[in-house]
Structure formats: C-alpha cells, structure tokens
C-alpha cells in the first residue's frame, strides 16, 4: 500500500486550522500538565539544601514523563468520534482517502502540539528550578541523563498515548466516553514513569533502551492496530452487523 502524503497533509492542515480557530482545545491541553507540575514545583522550591542528599538519589525529572502521556489523550480521543458526531466524517469517508492516511493525519495533528506543550512545560519547570530553587537542590534534580531521557521519551510516549486515544475514539459512540476511556488508558504509562521516578523500577541504561525499543514497536503497531479497528461501516451506521 502506497500512502498519499498529500492526503495525510490535508487532514493534518485541516486539524491544525481547527485548533487555531478553537483556543479552548489548546487551553485544555495545557491545563493538565500545568496542574501536574504544580505540586513537584512547590516541593522543590520549598526544599532546603539539606534535602539535596535525598533528591540526588531520586529521578524526579523522570516524573515529568507522565506529561506527554496525559497531554494528547483528550485530543486523540476526540479525533474520530468527534467528527462522527459533527457529521463531518461521512464526507471524508466517501473520498479515496485510506484509513491509514486519515489516521496518520489525525495522529500527527495531535502529536505536534502535544510534544511542543510537553517540551515547553518541561523547559519551564527546569528553568524555574534552576533560577528559584536552592543551588544544591537544582544540581541534585537537573541531571544530564534525565534531560536526555525527557528529550527521547517525550515523542515516544506521546505517540503511544495518541494511538491509544484514537483507537478508543474509533470504537466508541460518544465523545465524553471516549475522553474518559483514553485518560484511563494513559494511567498505566503514568504509573510506570512514576515508578521509575521513585526508583521502584531502576533507571539505568538497560531499562531505558528496553523501554525505548518497546515504545518504538508499540508506536508502529499502534498505527496498524488502530487502522484495523477503523471500520467504515461501523462508523457510518453506528454498529457493525
């Protein structure tokens, strides 16, 4: 099967235009990570330098990897069922667009703002810690390998959260149900990043490589599985008979 990048781009551009005209979408995506980092930010800013000995043994920055897992859930879960409820899906399905092209366009449209927001929130968090925390605390929290992990794992986790969200969106009949299920489905990823942050799962090179490879495979499979779950008939008439 040969993908048409013109069609993928058409879906992507359409989605980005809709985000731009609907500020509430981006606001909703930004609120979750901002709320998520308030508590660790306050904890770090109020910590005395004596706490640096404890923090140096934790991987607090990795806790921030939960952000890319949460940010795209709302957007991705709306992507298909939302269009269906608005009545805009059927005209698209009558075009020669393949489901893989449609879904890739949708996924990219969620991926770009989600990764951007995740990086921006992370950079702001690091900047606040660097400027306002005790110098010893900042040095204990901000470490090279964790910055690298954030850089690499943010897109991988975002892509995974998006495919889960879109898969949910193709199989549900209601936007609210889809959004709740997608948020629920992102919790295991949040749990794993939290367990690594608190050293229940060791944060070493082997774990990083293993998780990275696993996520790459899952992201690739996610596209295929979501495409397979995308059933035109079910989406048009509500149920598959």
């Amino acid at each position, binding site marked *: 099967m040969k993908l048409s990048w013109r069609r993928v781009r058409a*879906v992507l551009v359409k989605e980005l235009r809709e985000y731009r*005209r609907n500020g509430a979408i981006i606001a909703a995506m930004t609120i979750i990570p901002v709320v998520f980092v308030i508590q660790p930010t306050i904890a770090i800013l109020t910590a005395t330098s004596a706490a640096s000995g404890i923090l140096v043994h934790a991987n607090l920055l990795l806790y921030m990897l939960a952000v890319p897992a949460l940010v795209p859930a709302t957007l991705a879960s709306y992507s298909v069922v939302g269009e269906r409820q608005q009545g805009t899906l059927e005209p698209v399905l009558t075009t*020669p667009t393949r489901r893989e092209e449609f879904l890739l366009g949708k996924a990219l449209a969620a991926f770009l703002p989600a990764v951007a927001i995740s990086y921006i929130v992370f950079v702001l968090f690091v900047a606040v810690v660097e400027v306002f925390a005790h110098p010893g605390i900042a040095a204990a929290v901000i470490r090279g390998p964790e910055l690298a992990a954030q850089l690499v794992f943010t897109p991988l986790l975002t892509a995974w959260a998006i495919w889960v969200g879109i898969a949910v969106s193709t199989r549900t009949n209601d936007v609210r149900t889809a959004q709740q299920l997608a948020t629920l489905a992102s919790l295991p990823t949040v749990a794993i990043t939290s367990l690594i942050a608190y050293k229940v799962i060791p944060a070493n090179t082997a774990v990083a490589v293993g998780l990275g490879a696993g996520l790459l495979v899952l992201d690739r499979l996610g596209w295929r599985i979501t495409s397979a779950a995308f059933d035109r008939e079910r989406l048009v008439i509500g149920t598959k008979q």
Partner: protein
Amino acid sequence: MSDPSAGALSVSHLSKRFGDRFAFEDVSFEVGYGEVFGFLGPNGAGKTTTVRTLGTLIAPTSGTATVTGLPLTPENGVEIRRRISVMPEAPGLYLKLSVMENLRCFADLYEVPHARERIDDALRAVNLTDRTNDACGGLSKGLRQRVALARALLPDPQVLFLDEPTSGLDPAAARDVHELIDGLRQRGVTVFLTTHRLEEAERLCDRVAILNTTLRTIGRPDELRDRLFHQTLTVRTVAPIATPERVFGAIPGLDSWRADGSATYILSVSDAVAAAPAVTRALVAADADVLSIAETRHSLEDVYLQLVNDDESVKTP
C-alpha cells in the same frame, strides 16, 4: 478489472441486512452513463443505505454490483471512490473553516490536479464565488448545501450520488439545485438522485425507481403512469345524461365508465387520444350539452402513493 461494457451502475439482487431487518432487499437496476436516475421511497425505505453501499461505505449482505464498471468489492473501494462523488443528506462541512479551506481540504483528499482552478470552477457552478472566505458556520442552510455540492463536484466524478440534495431548502434554493443538476446532465455526468420531492424527480430524472425495502417499480415517469393507471377521460355536461349506459356503452375502445357526481363521468380508455373523438360524437348524437372533455393526467406522485399505499395495506391487512 473495470468492465467497459457495463453501465455507470449495474446492481444485481443486492441486499443489505442489519440483524434480522433488511434495509433493502433483492434490488436490481442499471443506470447508463449520462443518465439522471431518481431513487424514490418513503423514510426508512433503504435509499440512503443503498447510496452508502454503492459508495463503498458499507458492504452488501448479498448480491453484486459494478460502479463505473468496477465490481463492488473491498479491494476496489479506493478506485471506486476515486471515480464517484457522494453528497450526503447533511452537508457535513467543517464549520470553523472557510468555504475555500473546506474545498481545499477535499481537493487534496481527492488529489485533484490544478486544485485552485477546479475549486474556482466548482464555486462558479454553485454561484458561491463571492463567499469563498466566509466561515461555513456563518452560512445559511441553503448556502451550506451549495458548498457541499461544490465539494462533490471537485473530483469531476463519473457518477454523482446526491442524497436528498434539496432537503430543508426553500423553493428558491431548491430551484438553484435543480438548475445545477440540469447543468450536470448537459455535461454528461451520471446523477443518482434520492429524493422525497416527487415533482423534483419528475422534472429532473430520465428514469426513476421506487424503493420500499424492495424495488417496487422502475422506468420513465410517463411509462410508470401508463403502466399503473388506465388513461381516463373526464366528461362534464350541463345536465345529467338521461341514459349514460346507452351513450357510453357503444363507444369503441372504452373499457369502463362511472359517474362522478351528477353531471361528470369518468371514462376509462385504452388510448385517450383515439377515444376522444368517438366520445364527442356519441355525446353530440345523444343531444348532451357538453361543458368539457379532458384527459386526466396522473402524476408521478399518484404512482408513488399508489405503490407505497399498496405496501402499507399489505403490511396492515
């Protein structure tokens, strides 16, 4: 493989079942290239499901079909959708986007060459060139319908499916759509039109089919009238005829007659044009003061109601 000898649409014993209920059953018909084909039926008759099936959105339960010569199979879905265009009943526009942005998106989805020129052509065809930068959410229902029509014209389809294109439109907007369909016919585009508006079908369609889960009839509107109804002459006289059975009984080609009020007579004939002079002569010979002799013309609506009411009476004995 495409079959060049096949018509634009060739449907053979096609059925679609949802659970134990048939949306449509054992439907067969042919539509030639350049034909405007009307698909009529009451709500729930299966018209939209038929369009969705031929548009490759849903799979038939049984039967076969070719669309633009291509067998209706999942493997041919992309190629069929490249050759046809479907305008669903609801326009389904992106309301936050402008008219131009909506059309640009679909031009890309259809991979239309020279997209900008094609969009301009489509906008001209629906008289919307002055609204290109308006957000679709701010347009009236009639204008949204026109944008949806422009969108359907973008790929220059071989077969254009129009599902209730004038539904909810005021008479002026509906007339614009009719003119557009007339224009498409002149350009040789095959149009498959589902509608509730019988006068619309009568005016626009070369042939019509009436569906009520099964196909009830198919043919040219005048053929259907002749097939279903006897031709009739209505005779009105100043005063009741004293012995109508003697006057009408001797007329050749008259199948039957009945009185409709005191001085009106309905004559059932095999050929109205041939019978009218004989009826006139018989009335003159009987010294009847004739007010009028007129052929009663049945409309497509009469045909439709006759067939649909037949179905209803079968369902509720």
